[in-house]
């Protein structure tokens, strides 16, 4: 099951690309949905690209330093994604919508879990936190993609239902 979640996680960048293209095709303007899909797509590409070389690097250094670097680096990546999301919204003056709010809270949860993972690896030996780290990270990653998909589908369904898209 865990391998399955990680496999889905590997293909998330393609999923975000498809969602982004669908969003551009459907909305035909720069809105919060398209910004979120674009930021997540860029973030996934960058994180997938650095993951394997970085894993090789931390395997060759002492465990204590490796723990610090590993957890801090991913928390930093999620934090940068969050800041990028806010910055793009502010630069293009688009309202921070429900998709962006959900994704930003998910990113906050990811940063928190990375912090807990670091605590678990260095001070607290807890089965619960370990399980939360192993299962929580891929689950939240996948839920972000699923939320975008459900949001797009529900937007299309609402637009068909009431004649036009007008949900604020």
């Amino acid at each position, binding site marked *: 099951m865990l391998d399955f979640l990680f496999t889905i996680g590997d293909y998330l960048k393609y999923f975000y690309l498809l969602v982004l293209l669908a969003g551009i095709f459907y909305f035909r303007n720069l809105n919060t949905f398209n910004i979120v899909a674009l930021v997540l797509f860029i973030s996934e590409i960058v994180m997938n690209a650095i993951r394997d070389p970085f894993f090789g690097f931390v395997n060759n250094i002492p465990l204590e330093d490796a723990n610090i670097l590993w957890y801090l680096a991913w928390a930093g990546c999620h934090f940068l994604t969050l800041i990028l999301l806010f910055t793009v919204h502010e630069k293009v003056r688009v*309202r921070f919508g429900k998709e962006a709010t959900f994704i930003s809270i998910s990113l*906050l949860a990811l*940063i928190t879990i990375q912090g807990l993972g670091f605590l678990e690896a260095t001070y607290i030996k807890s089965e619960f936190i370990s399980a939360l780290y192993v299962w929580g990270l891929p689950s939240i990653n996948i839920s972000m993609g699923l939320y975008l998909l459900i949001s797009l589908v529900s937007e299309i369904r609402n637009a068909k239902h009431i004649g036009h898209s007008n949900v*604020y």
Partner: protein
Amino acid sequence: MLNILVIATFISLVGVSALRIRKRAVFQTIELTETLCRRKFSEYLDIVELPDGLDKVKRLNQFKLDLQNIKASGRLEDISFKKGKAKLRIVS
């Protein structure tokens, strides 16, 4: 010592992110109501703009009253308020 610094960094990251999200939510509420007052409602429903002299709480309360009246007219499909944030669906 280094570990304590790392933990402090984690707490900072979480704190800054949470504050940013909270700040954004407040901004969203004000912008949402004012945008709706000034543009969307006047386009769809001929709503008179709220007086600029009123403070934000009074403007929001007035806005809520206006929305209830509009809902009674049958053109609003759905309306909900939570912590000063309005979410609505308008039938064209």
